[in-house]
């Protein structure tokens, strides 16, 4: 399959997942799953009269069209987007379309943009499914048409399909998909089908309703937390207070006395308490006395790490990008601007903390979870239980957000629940629940980074050299996915491909060794590179005495799609026109995951010395807009998510121990923080690219640039709250 913008997808993640995919290649699940938990899975059985032309769609005699999603739905609208693509080519009646989660089966449901393993990430769900689901829908449509042609004795070319009905204009005959389903199932699968021209699209590009919104509004949607199996135990796990510590010894006598506690077991990840419910399990955990072996634990705090990183940033690192001779050009520059940026550990804090349910079934096990990478989760559970991956079946449920948290390289929560079952033995199903404190303090953070930037201007005040050093942990190292150069692409993405035209450019990387497990956090490297690059280009514009939009426009001449969103946002925001009193504007433009986003914000001075953001004008170019309404929703989402992190969020380590615990100290964006957001979508015929992440990177630098325009103060440490306290 070819994509218009192959570079769009994080090469780092793709490479990692190719590596991971090799281990799990060719997995085909031998299980048959028609008997699972009635509430969860009864609907997934194929009926004998159903038409199942391929792995992605099933049409039943009752006219229902069930699209099988190989991607998890954790809010980003994937179920709706995928169903829209398939239903478009099928010419289905949208009101008859349902979506079900695919089982773990990488052979059928691999992600071509993640190296073929089954998983969701890198904003690839729509992009990697685009051709596949169009083909799947068109094939099903052709077989329905063939069935109708045969039944009516007419040629297929005389038939029309619309809203789930095949009709023959000449004779006035009509049949619904359901009426044709059984006959269609006997038709040969066509080798080649014609796809629609985009001008023929009826669903794609329109506002279709979310397929999941009714059941999420009335409480029927089922999350992992909502799984209650007969005789099930609930487990909580006491993890070490410092990352890398292990259990030396423990006393569970008090825990075992707690009414409802059934067992206390040691696992590779800590001590688990199993009980008849969550609260006795938690009370049992609170009663544990554990001596930890901290000889290999990470004991440094955030302040010490910042100091070490800042020293490293003064030294040359691994070469991530070289254009011209940046060192020489800096020496010869008429004016040099310097800045150091600091980025904290960030927790993802999805609304549903991690959880998973496991039970023994026949010769294997079944797991219920918000499984973002089923192939990895399958392997992790198999590893913990000493069985083969194909003995692990996974039911992927709706998940209460993720932002990267559920895509761990070691299948963390699934490994934990499988380890607990292994240690406990017994036949009872087990639900493992993370508390919010476990979530905020449990690691897998967006790592800390320090950036040092130097920019040089020539005698005319024109920027001509860019010199950037990035210091921080490699996310990919644990996966063995860092290339020989040692440059982890996910550490430098968004900086090494700086779009601005510089004659001389150098980007260096220092990988640091820290015992805190890292993870991708919505937009990964772009979370920090967009901030440093877009605020520093603003600093250079200021040094050059040039308007920030004008300078960007001039230096982005070779990047028409960057320019497109910049111009659109500038026009819609009224850039250059008077700002309401007490406010100032700031701009940022950044490409990530194949999509281009510009955001222009208006800020004023708010409470506690922080910016109050009033308005965000966002322009996005993500190729064909499959669902404009969802694209707007994802931009609002990314802006809200990024704004909270920019203003408030950090996990601070003191002597290696996380200091934040819950939403009182790790502050999410609340309703009163949220600005008015307008989203404008660039009209495009390019293949669609991601929207889950690209809205996030520009918001923090846009706010910082507006804050400078308002106050003359540059904020070079996130969150703003910390930077302002340091003023």
């Amino acid at each position, binding site marked *: 399959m070819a994509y218009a913008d192959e570079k769009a997808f994080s090469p780092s993640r793709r490479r990692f997942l190719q590596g991971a995919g090799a281990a799990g290649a060719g997995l085909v699940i031998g299980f048959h799953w028609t008997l699972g938990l009635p509430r969860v899975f009864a609907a997934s059985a194929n009926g004998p009269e159903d038409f199942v032309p391929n792995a992605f769609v099933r049409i039943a005699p009752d006219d229902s069209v069930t699209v099988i999603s190989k991607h998890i739905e*954790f*809010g*980003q*609208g994937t179920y709706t987007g995928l169903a829209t693509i398939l239903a478009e080519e099928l010419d289905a009646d949208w009101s008859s379309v349902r979506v079900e989660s695919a089982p773990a089966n990488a052979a059928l449901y691999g992600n071509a943009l993640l190296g073929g393993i089954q998983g969701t990430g890198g904003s690839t769900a729509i992009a990697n499914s685009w051709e596949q689901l169009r083909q799947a829908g068109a094939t099903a449509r052709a077989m329905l048409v063939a069935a109708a042609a045969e039944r009516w004795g007419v040629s297929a070319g005389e038939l029309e399909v619309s809203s789930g009905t095949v009709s023959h204009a000449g004779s006035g005959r009509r049949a619904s998909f359901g009426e044709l389903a059984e006959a269609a199932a006997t038709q040969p699968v066509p080798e080649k089908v014609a796809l629609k021209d985009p001008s023929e699209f009826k669903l794609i590009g329109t506002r279709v*309703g*979310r397929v*999941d*919104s*009714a*059941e*999420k*509004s*009335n*409480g*029927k*949607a*089922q*999350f992992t*937390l*909502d799984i*209650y199996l007969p005789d099930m135990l609930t487990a909580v796990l006491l993890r070490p207070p410092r990352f890398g510590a292990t259990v030396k010894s423990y006393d569970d006598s008090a825990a075992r006395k707690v*009414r*409802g506690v059934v067992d206390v077991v040691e696992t590779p990840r800590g001590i688990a308490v199993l009980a008849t*419910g*969550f*609260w006795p399990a938690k009370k049992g955990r609170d009663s544990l006395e554990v001596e930890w072996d901290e000889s290999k634990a990470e004991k440094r705090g955030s302040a010490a790490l910042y100091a070490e990183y800042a020293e490293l940033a003064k030294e040359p690192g691994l070469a991530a990008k070289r254009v011209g001779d940046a060192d020489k050009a800096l020496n010869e520059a008429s004016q040099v601007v310097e800045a150091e940026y600091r980025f904290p550990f960030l927790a993802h*804090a*999805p*609304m*549903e*903390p991690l959880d998973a349910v496991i039970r023994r079934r026949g010769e294997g096990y079944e797991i219920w979870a918000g499984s973002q990478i089923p192939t990895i989760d399958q392997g992790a559970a198999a590893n913990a239980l000493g069985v083969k991956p194909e003995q692990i079946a996974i039911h992927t449920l*709706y*998940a*209460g*957000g993720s*932002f990267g948290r559920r895509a761990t390289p070691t299948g963390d929560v699934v490994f934990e629940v499988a380890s607990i079952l292994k240690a406990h033995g017994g036949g009872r199903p087990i639900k493992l629940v993370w*508390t*919010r404190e476990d979530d905020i303090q449990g690691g897998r953070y967006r790592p800390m980074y320090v950036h040092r930037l130097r920019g040089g201007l020539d005698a005319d005040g024109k920027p001509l050299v860019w010199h950037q050093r990035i210091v921080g942990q490699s996310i990919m190292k644990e996966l063995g996915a860092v290339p020989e150069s040692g440059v982890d692409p996910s550490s430098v993405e968004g900086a090494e491909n700086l779009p601005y035209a510089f004659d001389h450019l150098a980007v260096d990387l220092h990988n640091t060794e820290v015992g805190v497990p890292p993870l991708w956090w919505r937009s990964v490297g772009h979370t920090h590179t967009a901030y440093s690059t877009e605020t520093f280009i603003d600093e250079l514009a200021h040094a050059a005495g040039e308007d920030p939009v004008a300078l960007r426009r001039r230096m982005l001449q070779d990047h028409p799609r960057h320019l497109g969103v910049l111009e659109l946002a500038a026009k819609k925001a009224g850039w250059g026109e008077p700002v309401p009193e007490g406010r100032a504007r700031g701009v940022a433009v950044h490409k990530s995951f194949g999509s281009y986003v510009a955001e222009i914000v208006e800020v004023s001075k708010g409470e506690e010395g922080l910016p109050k953001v009033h308005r965000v004008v966002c322009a996005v170019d993500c190729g064909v807009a499959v669902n404009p*309404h*969802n694209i707007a*929703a994802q931009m*609002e*989402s*990314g*802006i*809200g*998510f990024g704004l909270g992190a920019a203003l408030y969020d950090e996990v601070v380590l003191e002597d290696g121990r996380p200091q934040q615990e*819950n*939403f*009182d100290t790790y502050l*999410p*964006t*609340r*309703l*009163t923080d*949220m600005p*008015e*957001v307008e989203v404008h979508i660039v009209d495009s015929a390019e293949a669609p690219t991601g929207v889950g992440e690209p809205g996030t990177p520009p918001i923090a630098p846009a706010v910082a640039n507006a804050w400078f325009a308002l106050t003359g103060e540059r904020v070079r440490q996130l969150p703003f709250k910390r930077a302002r306290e340091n003023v």
Partner: protein
Amino acid sequence: MKVSMTVNGKAASADVEPRTLLVEYLRDHLELTGTHVGCDTGQCGACTVHLDGRAVKACSVLAGQAEGAEVTTIEGLANGSEELHPMQAAFREYHGLQCGFCTPGMVMAAVDLVKTHPGASDETIREQLEGNICRCTGYENIVRAVKAGAASMGGQ
């Protein structure tokens, strides 16, 4: 201890530990899993239900404190003849949700808001629902949904 209350219009009673929280009772004993748990500390609002007609965070109330009370959860919000309560319908129509985990609490809080602040402005909606956290939507569609839901509830 024995607790008895009316939940979604039906009498419910059970023997529970005295420290049992209302949210635990609803989920573990009555299998009303639409009421979610996001923080266990009363900060996120995912567990919001109605206790005698007023919104409360069910992780901050003991089941025993609801003795004899009328409790309504997201599952009981719509009356028998309607598929969705007008506020639920508005959340569906205006896409006032993404992952959906905070949604039941948000809807329950919004219905209470309409009762206590009929004709609420955008600003009032934002202030009054500030105790409910959503990590996905950026809240824009939630505010739109609440306004529309309030309108179709007729300010009731």
